[in-house]
């Protein structure tokens, strides 16, 4: 069975090679073969989940399979470097996020790619709100008290984060720069261990994505002070926004977006963007993303131009926050 399929594959490959000789301008009917989507984090992580949900629908629209390739390492920059160097034929794409395409610029001075210069923006997929969380017996009762307490005890409190460059690290740095304090940051190897330490009460607070925190908040093992988005999230209706709770300056979202290597043809970018946008309008896709606590961008936010503007704004936002940290 298998060898028959192999033979068939060989024939197809040979035919394809022949066709390539005969008609070099075969790019009209993109895509003609499967597309590789690089995900810069491990399978099962928040970025991977978003990428899989959306690309599964995009593959139907495009009529070709999209193969997810998880490439881990160095806060996602290994994968992003690979994507930046890939052929710009539209067959290698990357699902980047706030870390790889914005915060990495100030964090890694030796970064070999630049999010704006080496990539073509395709489409914004989803935003994941960030929460301010604390151990359940941390004295402050609401965000105002928290701000006062942390400012008064900046020498004593410990903030956990999931490693340099992680969403929990950079978003807490933003919070600290707004509050103008420098508490001790305790690094953990990933969100799991950091959450464990918070549940066990070994550290005082952390900023993390909504996905990991909802079940713990509902079970009462940790508490949430505020959500750093403009609106409350349906999965946590009782948690106020930072604006409501008195810290409107703290706005942060972990966003995921598709990028293509620089120089990919506009026609290909357009068809990819259309497919992504169609996926985000699909009921099943929307439901699964909303279940994760994600915020789905409105049609106006899904254009490549909007994404380019977002990347520009995000780099400008994180650079002053993260520069002195390294």
């Amino acid at each position, binding site marked *: 069975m298998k060898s028959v399929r192999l033979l068939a594959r060989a024939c197809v490959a040979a035919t394809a090679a022949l066709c390539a000789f005969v008609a070099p301008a075969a790019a009209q009917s993109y895509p003609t073969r499967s597309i590789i989507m690089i995900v810069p984090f*491990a*399978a*099962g*992580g*928040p970025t*991977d*989940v978003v990428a*899989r*949900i959306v690309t599964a629908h995009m593959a139907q629209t495009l009529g070709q399979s999209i193969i*997810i*390739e*998880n*490439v*881990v*390492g*160095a*806060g996602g*920059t*290994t994968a992003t*470097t690979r994507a930046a160097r890939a052929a710009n034929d539209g067959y290698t794409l990357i699902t980047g996020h706030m870390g790889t395409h914005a915060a990495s610029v100030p*964090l*890694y001075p*030796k970064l070999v790619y630049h999010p704006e210069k080496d990539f073509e923006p395709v489409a914004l997929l989803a935003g994941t709100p960030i929460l301010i969380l604390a151990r359940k017996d941390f004295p402050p009762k609401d965000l105002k008290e928290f701000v006062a307490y942390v400012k008064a005890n900046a020498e004593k409190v*410990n903030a956990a984060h999931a*490693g*340099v*460059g992680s969403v929990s690290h950079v978003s807490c740095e933003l919070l600290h720069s707004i509050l103008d304090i420098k508490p*001790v*940051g*305790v*690094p*953990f*190897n*990933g969100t*799991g*261990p950091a*959450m*464990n*330490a918070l*549940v*066990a009460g*070994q*550290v005082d607070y952390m900023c993390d994505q909504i*996905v990991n925190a*909802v*079940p*713990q908040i*509902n*079970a009462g*093992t940790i508490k949430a002070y505020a959500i750093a988005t403009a609106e409350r999230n349906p999965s946590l209706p009782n948690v106020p926004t930072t604006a409501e709770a008195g810290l409107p300056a703290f706005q942060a979202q972990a966003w995921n977006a598709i990028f293509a290597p620089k120089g990919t043809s506009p026609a290909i970018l357009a068809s990819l963007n259309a497919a992504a946008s169609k996926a985000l309008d699909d009921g099943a896709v929307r439901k*699964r993303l909303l*279940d*994760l606590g994600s915020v789905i961008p409105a049609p106006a936010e899904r254009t490549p131009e909007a994404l380019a503007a977002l990347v520009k704004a995000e780099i400008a936002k994180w650079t002053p926050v993260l520069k002195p940290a*390294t």
Partner: protein
Amino acid sequence: MVDLFHNLGLGFGVVFQVSWWSPWWLFGLSLPISINILMCLIGALVGTLVGVLPGIGTVATVAMLLPITFGLPPVGALIMLAGIYYGAQYGGSTTSILVNIPGEATSVVTAIDGHQMAKQGRAGPALAIAAIGSFFAGCVATVLIAVLGAPLTKLALAFGPAEYFSLMVLGLIFAVVLAKGSVLKAIAMIVFGLLLSMVGSDIETGASRMAFNIPELADGLGFATVAMGVFGFAEIIRNLDAGAEMNRDLVQQKITGLMPTRKDLIDSAPAIGRGTILGSILGILPGGGAVIASFAAYTLEKKIAKNPSRFGRGAIEGVASPESANNAAAQTSFIPLLTLGIPPNAVMALMVGAMTIHGIVPGPQVMQKQPDLVWGMIASMWIGNLMLIIINLPLVGIWVRLLRVPYRLMFPSIVIFCAIGIYSVNNAPVDVILAGVFGLVGYWLIKHDFEPAPLLLGMVLGPLMEENLRRALLISRGDWSVFVTRPLSAVLLAVAAALLVLTVLPVLRAKRDEVFTESEN
């Protein structure tokens, strides 16, 4: 108790849930099949296969196969992933015993005595006892999860950075005890391993350490890369040395019985029991507890043995105990996931990913909200272990027959499998070259009578030790006394100190007795 039986009943009900399958070629007839049993079997088979292939570890396997499960129903998907996880644990010991290539930190210890047994023609008993030990440990640990899961969670929360640091110190002492030759050289190898583990990026500042701007080194040396090098490739290169053929031919002629003798079983029964207890306890600790389970078990056996010098030369307890311990730890490491919703290690993090994809976000309430999922998984673990022993015992004969393949054909095959395995972990060609370089390093180490096992253990424990030390000091604001004022940590350090004294004293005494050191070769 009634609750427990009710829950287990629920679990087995989920696993044995029968659906009717009516394919067209049966003309309207329907066959009863249980999808979850099928998933469990597939997981166990795939896990065994991948565990046997050198180079691909459990984490890499689960990561690779995760996407396959996305199309399955959630309970089935998780049962299959769990099957892959402990199937790989069973399979991993096979490669360690047969060809001395541990694919996982936990099977490094198995390779020490297991491969010696294989060299003495006792590969069959070694493989069989590994499977039997794993099965026993798996059964006990499953019951433990079901009965004591919730209260044991407190242990996971009691361990803070200071306790982990002390546990890792204890782990390093275990690594010294592992050594069969010179203690000084063993310690040097551990420190060498610690130094290698420093390559990569710093956890606190993100600074790149000793990576020489090589992107593949930015996240440090992979365990599989170094293990394939110093064990796999180095062993092959050494076996190709002129004059080594004789030893190999001898091995092939010496193969005796496939199954353990009565004496083997009697010798290993208590070891299996002790390994199971140690492994069950250490497995609960998130973030590194399970890693040291197997060598804690080995150390215990070596220390209480009447004749410790048998260890490292094919002692069956040296296979039975660590194998039971690592399988027990593999099972109990589900506890923090099931009761707290927090993944204790990389494999469990992937399981969480699988759950998230299926719309289940694990948390402290997962046991109440998704009882069918949790108890179905627990029940499937027991069934999975049963399947694995049924699969593995008959396989022993086939594996042992593999040893009869002439080495001239065997070694290029191992090279290819290792290369593909290493490449597939990160899709990185540089990793393959690095493994080759470590093969040369390992060859050199063999020539200078350094043992690779302590090096690998140092490498695994190094980052855990450094990170927890730094975390503990950050939280205590630089106060080193936390390590002795926190009771659990103090106990662990005391045990470590006692063990060190016990290990070093006999060596010093021996040195005094015989001025000329034993020339072991």
